[in-house]
């Protein structure tokens, strides 16, 4: 159901290969999806799946994980879904440090509805609702996740498929909120509005503009403009929500045993 040149299939393949390497089983894995092109990925999956409403996938996933912390819960969202309409849930899922893996495919626009601008559409670029150039600034998904408290933050691209798979695998292995942003081409809409009508042009763009942190640091302003960093961007080991909640239950039980108020 995805257009020629779309990167969603590459992200899906990377995720499924990571599942396989980690020996995830169908019955103890739940993939929660939002609305959008990437949000339709559940129709390709044999695991448990919950296809939700626009922007709310993380909130549904929060309930699933809190009710059964033994499940692997993976949340698939686009840039419009995950951090534009769903920005509030994104912040708070990271703040709570829910043990979820969020895979956000960022194609810089709303592909499903015809290529309108999203919260990650770069300033001055063109979409079907910013034909004069985007007057707004873009949001950095990874920096948002980091300041909101995520335990793991990484960015990859679909040009760097093998590396993307490794990042997803690391994220899945990480306890607490883990985010992988997968930058991905939308030649049908974003590319055609921004001088990259052919899929290969968009892949070449990712090849050229996605650099390691070291390479990025060596770039000087204004040459940095348009370049972005890929790889692991943040990692910490704060206890996740369910671990903290279980500790609280233990304190309550201990206090009740001793006849004291919790």
């Amino acid at each position, binding site marked *: 159901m995805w257009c020629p040149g779309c990167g969603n299939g590459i992200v899906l393949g990377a995720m499924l290969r990571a599942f396989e390497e980690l020996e995830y089983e169908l019955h103890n894995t739940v993939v929660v999806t939002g609305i959008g092109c990437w949000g339709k990925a559940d129709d390709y999956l044999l695991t448990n799946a919950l*296809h*939700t409403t626009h922007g709310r996938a993380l909130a549904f996933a929060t309930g699933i994980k809190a009710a059964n912390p033994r499940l692997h819960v993976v949340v698939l969202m686009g840039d419009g879904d995950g951090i534009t309409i769903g920005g509030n849930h994104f912040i708070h899922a990271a703040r709570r440090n829910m043990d979820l893996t969020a895979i956000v495919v960022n194609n810089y626009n709303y592909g499903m509805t015809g290529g309108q601008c999203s919260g990650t559409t770069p300033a001055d670029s063109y979409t079907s609702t910013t034909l004069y150039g985007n007057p707004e600034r873009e949001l950095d998904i990874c920096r948002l996740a980091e300041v909101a408290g995520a335990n793991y933050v990484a960015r990859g691209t679909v040009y760097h498929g093998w590396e993307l798979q490794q990042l997803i695998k690391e994220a899945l292995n990480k306890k607490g909120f883990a985010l992988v942003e997968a930058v991905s081409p939308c030649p049908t809409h974003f590319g055609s509005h921004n001088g990259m009508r052919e899929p290969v042009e968009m892949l070449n763009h990712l090849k050229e503009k996605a650099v390691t942190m070291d390479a990025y640091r060596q770039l000087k302003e204004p040459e940095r403009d348009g370049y972005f960093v890929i790889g692991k961007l943040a990692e910490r080991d704060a206890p996740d929500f369910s671990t903290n909640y279980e500790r609280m239950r233990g304190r309550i039980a201990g206090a009740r045993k001793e006849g004291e108020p919790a």
Partner: protein
Amino acid sequence: MQREVKLVQGNQAIAEGAVYAGARYYAGYPITPSSEIAELCSVLMPQLGGVYMQMEDEIASIAAVIGASLAGVKSFTATSGPGFSLMQENLGLAVLGEVPCVIINVQRCGPSTGLATKPAQSDVMQARWGRHGDQAIIALSPATVKECFDLTVTAFNFAEKFRVPVVLLADEIVGHMRENFTYPAPGELQVVERKKPTVTPDRYKPFEPAEDGIAPLAAFGSQYVFHITSSMHGTDGYSNNDPGNAAWRVAQLHQKIDRYRSEIVLTKTFNAEDADVLLIAYGATTRAARAAALTARRGGIRAGVLQLLTIWPFPDEIVAVLGGQASTVVVPEMNFSGQVAGEVQRVLGPGADIRRVNRYNGQVITPQDILRAIQGR
């Protein structure tokens, strides 16, 4: 054994009724006049091995409730009108995905922020029609602290049995009033568990109705692997855009409730059998209606009360029978537009003598207000 009578608040009875029904997951967002339910759940849930979560908004609250329910845990939330509005989109998912869950709406006076601490009964139609798309849910309404407890248990039972969201339409009066209440012993009230699949995992289809019209629901993490989706889907839970399938799905959501109407529709009557003047009331207003009917009887008017414990599906049959026997029907309710009175009119027809008593300023309807309508003044 002498059972202890306690002075209990309505909101407290709702929270404890949910626990009695087996609820072990609560997600909500603070809002007057429902917040006592959240506060009590934050204490009770972790003691019982359950989870309380204060979410970032009501959209997330109902989403988390639906997620937890799909993980096999009875789940609920509590809110008031503004939060109820925010929940509507995801409630639609619970309808189409057939996910059991309970939503407490302790109604307050609107529109918008309105009179945040004052009572109303103005979300009756929001409960029925608040979501886009054509669908059906169940709504119940308590008038006493005991009914707050009992109907919360019933709400969970209906949700679990029929795989449907159930709304408890309480109001600020019943939510905050305190009455003597004797807690039922474990086992005293029936508690229903959702029907689990019995087929082998490879044959399980989450939307294939059994002979009783309801599809069994597995839990995420069990041996059954399944898909639930907000998109139109076939019995296997995968997207399906076939018009015939869509027609079947939409009809099935209505028909499963229609089929069990007689079980779902709960009412009480007070001197209604011979009533010449029938008061049809629900929620806190029932109390004023009962007082008014007794006073009218003492004055020689054969007045009685039909209390609607179930509001949706609307109790057409009993309203037609008792309303048809009476020469006058009075419908008191705390809203301007007569949200239930309109339904009564639909059932009894345009020629019926239906008198509306409405208050929509945050003040309660008094027995005197109703008596004036009975006496035609």
